[in-house]
């Protein structure tokens, strides 16, 4: 239950972080809040040879509304976002979802960018970003590109991030439509057995596949969730339908 040995580099800028990624190759990992990476290392599920600590990089912890978008910097911590009045005002879906992310001590350290880049299919935030039509800002030595959230998550803990790229912000278009968020978990703070983040007609389910799954509220629900120790695939499919029906009732539509 102790992490294997690794080298540690602390960087001060995004450019330094990208340069370190280029220099150290695929065995290097970025360390932000560390609330997913360090447990994985303690459990020896991950053993990067180099950790590049971006925790003190300046300019990535801002929350602002500009040009019709809510922009959240990659290093904004969950607890900060949860308490942010601007987020609560403009995107209450996100505030509600953040309440369900782990526990206060984890939220106080873990970052929004780290959560998204980790691409856990059971995590609330990737699904929220799909529902909200968010755009993810990615920076590398060759510049900045923007990726739609629905193109960003490509598999179990897999994103389209290239080895020299880092996630630097996420942007949510405003105004955000009517929303609904619920997850079914055994205990507060546990991973969801099934969850749903909905924004307008966009329903994003989590814990139902190897990545968050986006469906239109008007379409039939064609999910094929996996079975594990928490629930069978059939139970997950049932619960996903229950959550969808609740969302449609909340939106005042058909049941």
């Amino acid at each position, binding site marked *: 239950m*102790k992490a294997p040995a*690794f080298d*540690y580099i*602390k960087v001060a800028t995004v450019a330094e972080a990208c340069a370190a990624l280029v220099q150290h190759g695929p065995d290097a990992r970025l360390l932000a809040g*560390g609330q997913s990476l*360090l447990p994985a290392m303690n459990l020896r599920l991950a053993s990067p040879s180099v950790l590049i600590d971006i925790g003190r990089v300046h300019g990535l912890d801002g929350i602002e509304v500009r040009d019709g978008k809510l922009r959240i910097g990659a290093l904004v911590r969950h607890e900060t976002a949860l308490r942010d009045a601007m987020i609560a005002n403009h995107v209450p879906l996100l505030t509600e979802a953040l309440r369900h992310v782990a*526990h206060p001590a984890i939220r106080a*350290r873990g970052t929004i960018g780290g959560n998204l880049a980790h691409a856990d299919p059971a995590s609330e935030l990737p699904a929220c970003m799909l529902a909200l039509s968010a755009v993810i800002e990615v920076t590398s030595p060759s510049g900045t590109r923007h990726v739609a959230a629905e193109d960003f998550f490509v598999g179990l803990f897999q994103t389209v991030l290239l080895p020299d790229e880092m996630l630097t912000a996420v942007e949510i278009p405003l105004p955000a439509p009517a929303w609904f968020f619920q997850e079914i978990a055994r205990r507060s703070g546990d991973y969801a057995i099934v969850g749903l983040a909905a924004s307008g007609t966009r329903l994003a389910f989590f814990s139902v596949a190897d990545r968050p799954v986006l469906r239109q509220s008007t379409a039939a629900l064609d999910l094929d969730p996996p079975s594990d120790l928490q629930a069978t695939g059939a139970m997950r499919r049932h619960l996903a339908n229950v959550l969808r029906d609740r969302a449609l009732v909340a939106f005042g539509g058909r049941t």
Partner: protein
Amino acid sequence: MKIALTVNGETIRTEVEPRVHLGDFLREHLSLTGTHLGCEHGVCGACTVRIDGNLARACLVLAVQADGCDVQTIEGLSDSGEIADLQQAFHERNALQCGFCTPGMLIAAQDLLLRNPDPDRDTIREHLSGNYCRCTGYHAIVDAVMTTAKGRRGD
């Protein structure tokens, strides 16, 4: 790797391997064994400390990440008298049996009380949901936190 941090008000300058997490650093390097290590992957809450005024899992923070930070452990909170009433309430209400979870429970409960002087039972349970007590003493723990909140409000 060289680090400098403040632990319970005292400046510490030392050298530490990158793989050492803050929990081990506090216990093994500074002999502050009040920070307990249970699961070491962020689930049990026994290693809860304060970093720059916010809750943190000492097992999920590397000592090198705490460079430049202000760390407070149960020893600091206890010695300063900050949580004396909370400790007394835990004692009176039998809110601990083996005591393994108690340092984490106290720090997490104090974090809530600082933010919310009048929490209801559900709020307390929610805030302590990341702290496991395997002696199943939750009811008494919630009672103790309620009592402390009431006492601080002067009700």
